[in-house]
């Protein structure tokens, strides 16, 4: 029963007015995208074929060296990919049970608990990240506990990829939990009963019914956390002690320290293209044979 918000009578006048309205509605956003997204992207692409001006920045030119270098210097990208993938998995491992708990077990307190998930967002990301320095620091509780547990006389968490991973998961967990929660919440409970009724135990039911049905949320969540993780550069700086070098940091180096905008741009294009392709592929893959667009990116 897809019916337009406004019936479209054949009268030319009305149709024209409708067209006008539609345009008016789409204009601001469209304009913004055009000016502040498309144009910048064009700039980046143009730059990616230029050369570094004598004192840094961009000098017009048409060369492919930047791309060649981008490929030669793909390691940061690989590292980012690893971190992002593991980070996403981490968020999933932490987030899924939580979302499930919220959707099925939280009862009256659901509202509050979910609000609690949001609140961290409202404290400066930088400050929160710095707080982790204290928590994970050598003379901190965590390290102490681990040391007493493992018996090692000194455990260095900060400055290791582990610390970065913790930071990443911490920073983006809620983005994973929300979509998961929403899908689980909307899931038809009688499906779970049907499954149990047909002899599937708790785990069986989870594996064969809950998980597949939560898939759309899972995808959305994964993408929501994966994207920013790929571009992340503050967390590795602060918690990674600058010893974990991700794509974000590489871009910073190119654009700022080396002031080599062309090579930075080339890298950016490289990154964007790969991400678009992978994400599109991912979504397509999960959409095969499903109801139309059951899985959307957001």
């Amino acid at each position, binding site marked *: 029963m897809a019916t337009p918000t406004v019936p479209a009578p054949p009268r030319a006048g009305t149709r024209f007015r409708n067209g006008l309205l539609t345009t008016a509605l789409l204009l601001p956003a469209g304009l913004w995208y055009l000016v502040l997204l498309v144009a910048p992207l064009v700039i980046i692409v143009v730059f990616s074929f230029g050369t570094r001006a004598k004192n840094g*920045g961009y000098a017009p030119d048409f060369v492919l060296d930047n791309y060649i270098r981008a490929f030669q210097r793909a390691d940061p990208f690989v590292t980012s990919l690893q971190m992002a993938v593991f980070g996403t998995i981490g968020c999933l491992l932490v987030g899924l049970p939580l979302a499930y708990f919220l959707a099925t077990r939280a009862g009256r307190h659901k509202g509050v608990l979910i609000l609690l998930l949001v609140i961290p967002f409202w404290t400066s990301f930088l400050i929160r990240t710095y707080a982790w*320095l204290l928590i994970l620091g050598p003379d901190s509780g965590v390290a102490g506990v681990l040391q007493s547990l493992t018996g090692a006389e000194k455990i260095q968490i900060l400055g290791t990829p582990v610390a970065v991973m913790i930071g990443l998961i911490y920073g983006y967990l809620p983005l994973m939990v929300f979509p998961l929660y929403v899908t689980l919440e909307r899931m038809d409970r009688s499906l779970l009963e049907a499954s149990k009724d047909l002899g599937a135990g708790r785990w069986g039911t989870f594996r064969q019914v809950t998980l597949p049905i939560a898939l759309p949320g899972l995808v959305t969540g994964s993408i929501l956390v994966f994207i920013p993780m790929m571009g992340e550069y503050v967390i590795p700086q602060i918690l990674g002690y600058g010893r974990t070098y991700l794509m974000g940091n590489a871009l910073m180096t190119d654009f*700022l320290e080396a002031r080599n905008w062309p090579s930075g741009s080339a890298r950016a294009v490289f990154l964007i293209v790969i991400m678009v392709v992978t994400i599109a592929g991912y979504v397509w893959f999960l959409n095969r044979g499903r109801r139309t667009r059951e899985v959307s990116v957001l």
Partner: protein
Amino acid sequence: SPGSSASPAVSAAAPTTAGSAAATPEASAAASASAAAAGPIESELFMYNWSEYISLDNIEAFKAKYGVTTFKYDIYDSNDVLLAKLQAGATGYDIAAPTAEYVPGMVEQGFLQKLDKSRLPNLVNIDPKFKGLWWDPNDEYQIPKDFGTTGVLYRETMIPTVPKTWKDFYDLIKGPASGKTVFVDSMGDVFVFPLKMLGFSANSVVKEELDQARTILLDVAPHLLALDSNKYGEKMAKGEASLALGWTGVLTQDMADTPDKGYVVPTEGSIFWLDTWVLLAEAPHPNAAYAFLDFIQDPAIQAEETNYNNYGTPNDKAKPLVDPKVLADPAVFPPDAVFALLEGSQDTSASTQRTDIWEEFKQHRGG
């Protein structure tokens, strides 16, 4: 303690420099002079600067003295951001404080104004050894602000031997200080260590020399605790790190009450950096800017600056008024013997080889 100067409330309790400023005859004279020179002083001044790099008291004093009502102080956290903005064409500021080696580039790209010295009588106070340096042979575009050196910081009690040379430093990193060494996250400064150790220029862009430097860097990389320009002082204070390649500022800040702290400029030599005041080409408030540039070189005012940020001042007349403790600190005011070892740092960011090595180094964790 100096660190506390981070907070205005505390520095408010510090000696009232506003009074001393007003008291300085030549300052007021200069003021009137420059004021006379070109029209009235605007009521606004826009400054783009490192964070907390001038004393809030001085700002107040300045505003009071010249009737400047709005003094906008925005911060950048690296010359690169400053440059990026200028190169993109973002303007609107009157004064900025780039590090000296960036000045030539900025001049070349026309970001800076030639200074009218007649309007800056206080320039006479500047120490000659900061004049006519390569980045501004005729001192037309910049006024030395603060200087410091790049060297080795250490915790005496945490390392067996105090490093004298870059070689010592190298050995410590690979030995006792392994996993407890911090490098500042700054390409230019990091390259000083291998290049000087090898006896090359710290600013070298020669392929062979850089290749050798590379081996050393990759050699030490796995032993590093952190690459960090912000919190290395804290790390050392906490004992998380025992050795650092860095700047002197932290000695009097994060490490203020670390008794066994030490700083040395290795005998193979190092670089000194100089932060400078520049007048941006499209400064909307040139008169207020001139007023400030001169005002800040007033000995009393400058002394307050030094006391505030604990960096060496190139202003000779100011030294007598500086807190003796600070003045005595060789880390802040290196003796001439040491200074002789220092090379002015240059902008070498054009070398893609450096960048590639730098990235490789940053990613190299050994194993």
